[in-house]
């Protein structure tokens, strides 16, 4: 093994935060690939430039994704990273593991790859960082035979991901772990065989805290919520009052101003609550949602390339989410059908909705217009009316003439 002189990145072994360079060096002790990755990285640091080439198409038989092909321009200088593909393993819901399972993953990876990982990638996969083309089939055989499958890449469904939810959180409004598992199983074909216009991501958070950042980075963002009142335990409120200025920290920060506290009793006008979660998170022992549970479906978020970032838009204000999730699955299929018909290559669904209009999309998936879908109505008076729209307005007016009562 050639020993590289790496003064620049060595500096990153100092300091309190755990060092990725230390990790690379650990891996380098047993892997030539990782050793070359170190030298390669030092070169990047010293020249302030990257040397990876555009990815090539590599993968495993029968799948169109799950592996990101990566080659270096400096393959001669650093042969260990001439090929340096990553393998995306589909993580279990909620990133829960047993040591047994993880160690098995490590053993296989040490055998075929660099020994370096990302736990986890931004989408959620357990990313195995760096292997050669010829190792891909063996890697897949080893993992799949032990119950692990690849995650998504390319123009496909990407690996769904979720917050810890019912696993360890008092606020979840549906079973994020089960839903994520269930959807991933349901859509295996869409995950492994890219046939979409572009990538499609699903992320599920159990409540508005959105601990998996769904609203910002999933084409379908599923955010748990409820329909009933917030139940108040006034005794616990009193306890909080000992250490907290309830008016300053809770009542005055309530965005809908639907709370009041007179030093004795906390009141909530639940009808006006927007379920933002602020009060609940700060007084978790005193406040608890009640009533029907489910989620709000939002659609379209993505990173800024090419015409600016999108946050997901509310499309279905409330949906019940219980296994087998038939309603949601049907909806997802309708969403994909519409996207398939209307999207051009490399157009995310949010972009297509922007081009074709929310109406076309909502009508196709059978969702009626609701004020919860918007922050505010349109400003400019340029509107499409279908023949049916005008006919229905006219019919309403005819009806009004009869009844003598207007319906606006």
């Amino acid at each position, binding site marked *: 093994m050639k020993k590289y002189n790496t003064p620049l990145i060595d500096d990153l072994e100092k300091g309190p935060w755990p060092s990725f360079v230390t990790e690379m060096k650990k891996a380098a002790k047993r892997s030539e690939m990782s050793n070359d990755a170190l030298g390669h990285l030092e070169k990047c640091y010293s020249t302030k430039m990257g040397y990876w080439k555009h990815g090539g198409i590599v993968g495993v038989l029968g799948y169109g994704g799950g592996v990101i092909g990566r080659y270096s321009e400096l393959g001669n200088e650093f042969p260990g990273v001439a090929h340096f593909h990553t393998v995306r393993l589909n993580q279990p819901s909620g990133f829960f593991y047993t040591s047994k399972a993880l160690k098995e993953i490590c053993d296989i990876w040490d055998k075929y790859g660099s020994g370096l990982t990302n736990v986890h990638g931004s989408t959620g996969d357990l990313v195995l960082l760096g292997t050669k083309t010829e190792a891909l089939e063996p890697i897949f055989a080893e993992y799949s035979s032990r119950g692990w499958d690849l995650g998504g890449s390319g123009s496909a469904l990407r690996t769904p991901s979720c917050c810890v939810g019912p696993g360890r959180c008092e606020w979840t409004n549906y079973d994020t772990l089960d839903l994520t598992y269930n959807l991933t199983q349901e859509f295996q074909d869409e995950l492994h065989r890219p046939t979409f216009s572009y990538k499609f991501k699903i992320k599920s958070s159990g409540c508005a805290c959105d601990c998996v950042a769904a609203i910002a980075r999933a084409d379908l963002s599923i955010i748990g919520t409820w329909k009933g009142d917030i139940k108040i335990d006034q005794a616990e409120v009193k306890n909080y009052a000992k250490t907290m200025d309830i008016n300053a920290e809770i009542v005055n920060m309530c965005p809908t101003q639907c709370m009041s506290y007179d030093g004795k009793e906390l009141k909530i006008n639940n009808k006006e609550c927007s379920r933002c979660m602020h009060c609940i998170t700060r007084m978790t022992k005193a406040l608890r949602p009640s009533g029907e549970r489910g989620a709000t479906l939002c659609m379209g978020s993505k990173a800024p390339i090419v015409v600016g970032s999108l946050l997901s838009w*509310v499309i279905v204000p409330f949906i019940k989410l219980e296994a087998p999730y038939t309603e949601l699955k049907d909806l997802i299929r309708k969403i994909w059908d519409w996207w398939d018909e209307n999207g051009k290559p490399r157009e995310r669904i949010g972009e297509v909705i922007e081009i074709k*209009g929310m109406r076309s999309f909502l*009508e196709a998936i059978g969702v009626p*217009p609701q004020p919860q879908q918007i922050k505010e109505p349109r400003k400019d*008076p340029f509107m499409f009316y279908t023949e049916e*729209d005008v006919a229905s307005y006219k019919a309403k007016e005819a009806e009004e003439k009869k009844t003598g009562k*207007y319906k606006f």
Partner: protein
Amino acid sequence: MALPQRKTDIGPPHYKQFLPAVIQKNYGKWKYHEVLTPGTMVHVGESGDKLWTVRVASPRILSTDTIREQCDIAEKYCDGHLRYTTRNNVEFLVADEKKLEPLKTELKAKGFKMGGIGPHITNVVHTQGWVHCHSACTDASGLVKAMMDELYEYFETKSLPNKVRLAVACCVNMCGAVHCSDIAVVAVHTKVPNINHETFKNMCELPTVIGSCPTRAISPDPAKKSIKINADKCMYCGNCFTVCPPISIKDPERDGVAIVVGGKINSLRTSPKFSKLVIPYISNEPPRWPKVVAAIKHIVEVYAKNAKKHERVGEWIERIGWERFFSLANIDFTFQSIDDFTFMRDTLRTSATFKW
């Protein structure tokens, strides 16, 4: 009868010659004002001088007879001084307190209507309509008259949480600040324009017409030496019709009006706001547009009942949320209210927080 010698580029007369003496004296040195009644207020100068204003409603379309009548009154009580407001009311400027009550008495006797100052409904900003504009798809003056007859008490006596600025635009060109009104009516077409292909080639420039369409619905029709319009893309804005006479868009049975609410001009408390669409279509029903009038009155009443003092319509709605406005006002929410044009990104909801 020889004409006098014309002059050019002289600009308007200097305003100073039209200012009453009390204004000349206290010019720029006013200290405060007090609203006395919805139709009268007094301004007090640092000098202690006072100026009373009596505001009178105007239909804006004035005959010279009526202007002369106003002039006569001004001569009697205001040394001939009067002004009009930015919303087209007439204001009598009284320097002598003794003349105030007699002025009001005479105004009343002559049928002039005083009001509109303070938290009231004042004159409606509006445009030409069928009275003068080729582009009109409703009549603005008629709508205003019908509205204000119904809302009249809010002009003359009844207070609201704050001013409510109304406006009417007779087409989407929206002459006036209709797009930032508390409640406004805007006339809309609902059908794709017809093209007279015969006259098109002589009267219109192809690139101009194509360029006029905001949604790129227009493409050349080389066979006819004319254009064709993609019905799926046309949103009936009428801009092609504006630039090309052989294109016609008017349709008596389909033209109608939409109602927008929540706009505001000033920067008090909150920033200026555009009005937003809440009712997409009501048929044109001259001479009194009963449903339009009822809708506006209804919205004013819901606002009056629910808003806090000093809150403008838009401020109130933003506090309670648009979803709550629709439920409180019991207005159907339609696809038209969901923006699919320039501001779409801004207006879709990007959080799971809202009210049921």
